[in-house]
Every structure is written in structure tokens, then in C-alpha cells.
């Protein structure tokens, strides 16, 4: 088996007195799509944010693309290989959609303006909103904003993408347009770690599903097995609640 692109070994994280992650072990191979689910407060977002060091873990070891995060000399070198998509989009509201995609390419990848612009336009076309290139985020719908945010992360040519509840802040009719983009990405072979409760997406795209509760990985397996035939009671309870609604 080749070296995993993300390796998480016995990671613990405390927020004050809250023990948010309690010994997480997880390996993600290049090209895998891993979907993490679990009740709120189970630590799934915290785990995701630890992978690109937005949260600093207290003990254990995370290796991303061969670089150990704790001892990384230049965390920015790791981050530019790891695309991140947030629940609240976090587009830069003072820049147009196009400029949102260009800024980091110029600053971090040091690409000339023509090249950065070309890549940006290609990606906006790919997520289906090339005609909105000159719009400001405030002029876009939630679904459009999230698609711009995905394109912005892709513009850095990341080796993997992290999605932190990308559809939770969206109106129901906009969820599909975002999931379609993510599904297309998964089909292209992008390595993805997705925190989401979208069962349809998990079934269609995930190579593995992980159920987390109280800072621990309770159960993992292929989506069909986990959804239809979970072995742990906690997983069953959670799934019965989610599938009901």
C-alpha cells in the first residue's frame, strides 16, 4: 500500500476543559473520498480544521503530503496544497468572483496576471458561473457563492480538498448545484475529505464513510454498509434520526 496522503495518528485536541478530539487515527490515500458524519459537537469539523492547521492539535501527529504539521517550517507550503471549503463560504466580499480566484494565485503561487486570470476563468466555467465573474459575492446566491469558493480553492491546484459542511448554510434548492460540482471533482480523482450529512452524495461519491461521536471515530466503512448495516448502536441511533428527517 502506498504512503497515505493524510495520516492522522492518535491526535488529541482540547478547547479549555472540553476534550474535542480523543485519540483520532485516520489514513487517507490519494484519490480517496472520505465522508465524515456525526452529531454536532462530535469533533468532525475540528478534525478537518486540524488537517490544515487552522486548529492546532495538542498531541499526536498529523502528516500531510509527507510533511509533519507540528514541525513544519512553513505551514503556508502545506496549506497551499490543501484546498478548504467552508460552511459560510468566506468569499472575500470586497473582491469580484474573478478577483477572489486570482488573489491567492498571484500572492502564493506567484503566477503572472494573464495566467492567473485564464485559470480563474476556466474554473469559473467549470463550476458553471463564468458569466458571474465580475459580480461581487454579495450579488450572488448562496449556491453560487459556494461554487465560487470551490473554484477559488481549486485555483491553487491543491492535492486534496477539505469540505466543512459545504451545503449546511444553503437553501434546499441550491444544495444540488454544489453537490454536483463536488461529485464531478470526486469523479476526476480528487482526494477529498468531506464533513457532511448528505447521504446521497456519500453514496454516490464516497469511498469510505466515517462516523464520529464525542471526539472519537466510532465506526467506518463503505457508505452502503455503514448506512444500511451499521454495527455500533450509536451509529444506528444517529442514522435513524438523520434518515427520518
Amino acid at each position: 500500500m502506498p504512503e497515505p496522503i493524510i495520516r492522522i495518528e492518535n491526535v488529541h485536541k482540547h478547547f479549555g476543559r472540553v476534550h474535542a478530539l480523543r485519540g483520532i487515527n485516520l489514513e487517507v490515500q490519494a484519490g480517496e473520498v472520505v465522508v465524515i458524519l456525526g452529531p454536532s459537537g462530535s469533533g468532525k469539523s475540528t478534525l478537518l480544521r486540524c488537517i490544515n492547521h487552522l486548529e492546532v492539535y495538542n498531541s499526536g501527529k498529523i502528516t500531510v503530503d509527507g510533511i509533519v504539521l507540528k514541525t513544519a517550517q512553513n505551514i503556508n507550503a502545506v496549506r497551499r496544497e490543501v484546498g478548504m471549503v467552508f460552511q459560510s463560504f468566506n468569499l472575500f466580499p470586497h473582491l469580484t468572483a474573478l478577483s477572489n480566484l486570482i488573489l491567492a494565485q498571484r500572492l502564493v503561487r506567484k503566477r503572472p496576471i494573464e495566467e492567473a486570470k485564464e485559470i480563474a476563468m476556466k474554473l469559473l466555467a467549470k463550476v458553471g458561473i463564468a458569466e458571474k465573474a465580475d459580480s461581487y459575492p454579495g450579488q450572488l446566491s448562496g449556491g453560487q457563492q459556494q461554487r465560487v469558493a470551490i473554484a477559488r480553492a481549486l485555483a491553487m491546484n491543491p492535492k486534496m480538498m477539505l469540505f466543512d459542511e459545504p451545503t449546511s448554510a444553503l437553501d434546499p434548492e441550491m444544495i444540488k448545484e454544489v453537490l454536483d460540482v463536488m461529485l464531478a471533482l470526486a469523479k476526476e480523482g480528487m482526494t477529498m475529505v468531506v464533513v457532511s450529512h448528505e447521504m446521497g452524495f456519500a453514496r454516490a461519491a464516497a469511498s469510505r464513510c466515517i462516523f464520529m461521536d464525542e471526539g472519537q471515530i466510532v465506526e467506518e466503512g463503505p457508505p452502503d454498509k455503514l448506512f444500511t448495516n451499521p454495527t455500533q448502536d450509536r451509529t444506528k441511533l444517529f442514522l435513524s434520526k438523520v434518515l427520518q428527517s
Partner: protein
Amino acid sequence: MAPKGPDQNLGRMLSGKTKDPTETDEKVQEIINQIPGAEPSAKLDPWWWLVVAVAALIILMVVFFPDPYGDILNFVKDGIWITVQLTLISFVFILIIGLIGGIGRITKNPVIHFISTLYVEIVRGIPLLVQLIWWYFAAPAVIRGIGEAIHFSAMADYKSNALLLAIIGLSVCYGAYMAEIFRAGIQSIPKGQMEAARSLGMNYFQAMRYVIVPQAIRVVLPPVGNEFIMLIKDTSLVSAVAMADLTRRGREYMSAHFNPIETWTMIALIYLIITLLSARVISWLETRRKY
């Protein structure tokens, strides 16, 4: 954050709840372009009338009663220049000190944070007039004393420069207030903005320079404008430390001609026209935002 200019609200109103907004967008834009004043920046600030009224009043007074009003204006005009000069030069330094102090107040570095907080707390606690007097009368003596102690003749022979010391006094004092405004402005930007910038691989300074500060400027523009107008008025305090500013020249004219009503009415109107003009420029800057 969902900033909306009137044009976008109008756009939504005109397009209704269409399923595909992209298709109607161009038509809506076309319609908006035909409506005069739909662009926010195209609107004329209605408060220009007050500027015009005060200017007209001053001109009428000078034209119809050249004695004493024309005489007063002529006498104090170099004071107006000093006041404007003091305000503009100090304000540049205030913005620089404010930005450094504001970032210092939010940094995690304990030494820088301590120094910035100490500066803000001390300066805010002393009246501006006392600070100006200290800079003019005490600071030169301190510099000379140190110069003598370390046998450094350039410092020992230091001669006070009223303009320079007034600028230092105003900048140090207002810089502390400005630091608090900038701190609040930067902290008002959602945390997700910094996280998004950092997750794209930008370093802290790039994220500050290109993502946080441009958004914070929009937030702090009204209070910064407010400080600017307060500064114009507070420069009158330098008349206590040998600066021949507008207030000082007014006092000189009054003592020579014994006509306090005419002199101080004229001086008040001159301050008023300067501050009103500044207020219009500031509100023009505020409407210039694009997003």
C-alpha cells in the same frame, strides 16, 4: 456580510423571484442604467446646501461689511493656513500610528500587545491641552537635559520648534484614539475571512494587507472621518503653545480692535466652513464603495 447598494436592491425588485437570475441580469442592468441616480455614487449629497449657505454668509459679510469682517479675514488668513497644515500633516501621522497601534493591540505577541495597550491607556487618560503643553514646554528641556548628561551636543543645544512639537503632540494623542478605532475595525471582520486567506496559503501579512484591512477600512471610515473633524477643532488648543493658528490670530485681532462679537463670529464661521467641507468629502468617500 451582505452589503447592498440601492442598485442591487432595485435589481432584485425589478427581476422579482425569477428562477434564473442570470438571464434577466443584463436587462435589469439596462433598466437601472436608464434611471438617473440609481448608481449610489451618482447621488449628490443633499447636505451641500449647508456648505453653500455658510460660504454665502461669509462672502456676504465680507462684501457688505469689509470693515470689520474683510479686515478680520485678511488678518487671520495665515492662521487658517497653519490650522489646515497642522491638521493634514498630523492626520497622516495619526493614521500611521493608529494602524501600528491597532495591529499591536490585537497581536498575540505579549510584548507588543503590552506596549500598545500601555500607550493607549496612558495617552487617553491625559487631557490633550496638558499633553500639548508638556510637549512644548517640558519635552525640549528633557531633551537638553539628556543631551547634557550624555555629552551629545546636538541634543544639548536643542531648540524647540513649535510646529514640530505641536504635530507630535496632536499625533501622539489622536494616534491612541485611532488605534482603538482600527482595532475595532479589524476585529469586526469575521474570523472566517482570515481563515479563508490563510487556508489558501497566504501568510499573516498578506492576509491582513489584501483581505482584512481593505474590508476594515470600509468599517472605520465613518469614525475616522469623525476623528478628522474633531482634530480640525482640537488644533485650536495649540494656540496655547505659541502657534499662530486661526484661534490665536483671532485673539490677537480682538485684543487690538476690541470687537469680540465680530471677531469670534467670523472665526467660528471659518472653522464651520472647514469642518462642513471635510464632512462632505468624508461622506463622498463613504458612498464610493463598490460592494
